[in-house]
């Protein structure tokens, strides 16, 4: 692992580290607010159309969504283990754990893509193939589903690219621990967003 360098305007590494981490958390907070709008929309939709919301949720593929949640939680474990390996100065281990997490990210994308394909075939895709959409409220739910999972997939893709870039730098022994742990924070946030999307989209059932 490369040793951290002191940059202007800091006088010591501890303060630089704390500022670095604080800035990353502020960025993550803005991401949380971005997804917050989507969750707020789901509250409105569910309060106004409780029955249609549940019916639309039941039409999704619960088991594929569940498998994807497990895949993402496991990728988060690998990323957390990579940060631990970075602390004990083992760049090769960091690289392989990041590659493993990136592969799980790609597995998530593959499962999500399969779901999109199934929804296209079943006629649940607004605008492209919507023969099975029974009501305006179900259309709104599917809009919410594709917008939220699509925005999540964009974040996941950025995360996979970051993880692979860092893995390459770790293999060349040019990775700083701070960079590794900030990217790790981003990956975990992608995981947290999914943790809340999962019950919002897949788990709505009759009261």
């Amino acid at each position: 692992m490369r040793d951290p360098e002191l940059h202007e305007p800091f006088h010591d590494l501890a303060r630089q580290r704390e500022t670095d981490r604080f800035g990353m958390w502020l960025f993550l907070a803005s991401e949380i607010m971005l997804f917050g709008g989507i969750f707020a929309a789901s509250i409105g939709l569910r309060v106004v159309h409780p029955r249609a919301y549940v019916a639309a949720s039941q039409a999704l593929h619960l088991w594929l969504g569940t498998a994807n949640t497990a895949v993402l939680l496991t990728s988060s474990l690998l990323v957390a283990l990579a940060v631990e390996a970075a602390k004990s100065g083992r760049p090769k281990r960091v690289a392989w754990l990041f590659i493993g997490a990136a592969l799980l990210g790609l597995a998530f994308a593959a499962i999500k893509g399969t779901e999109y394909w199934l929804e296209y075939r079943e006629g649940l895709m607004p605008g492209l193939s919507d023969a099975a959409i029974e009501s305006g409220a179900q259309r709104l739910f599917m809009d919410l589903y594709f917008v939220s999972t699509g925005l999540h997939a964009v974040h996941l893709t950025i995360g996979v690219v970051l993880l692979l870039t860092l893995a390459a730098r770790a293999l060349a022994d040019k990775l700083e621990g701070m960079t590794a742990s900030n990217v790790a924070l981003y990956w975990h946030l992608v995981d947290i967003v999914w943790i809340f999307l999962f019950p919002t989209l897949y788990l709505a059932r009759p009261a």
Partner: protein
Amino acid sequence: MSATARLVVVWLALLVLLSSTVAATFLPLGHLRSGVAYGIAAAKAGLVLWYFMELRSEEGLTRLAGLAAFGWIAILFLMVAADYLARGWGF
């Protein structure tokens, strides 16, 4: 407990919570259903924040930055819910 063992235990706990929340969709929970689903989601997010995202070892300012967004979101949700839930009260 070593750091690695702790992370693995947290991951196992996350998978147990995932199984519980899926199992709960098949139970007759009535009006508790959403509370259970989002309660379990919050527990999972809490584990990820505290252990994987290392809030347990951060300074106060960083913890505050990490948790502030959830506070703001709570305000957003409260306002949205207050609007939608109060419709039809006939003021």
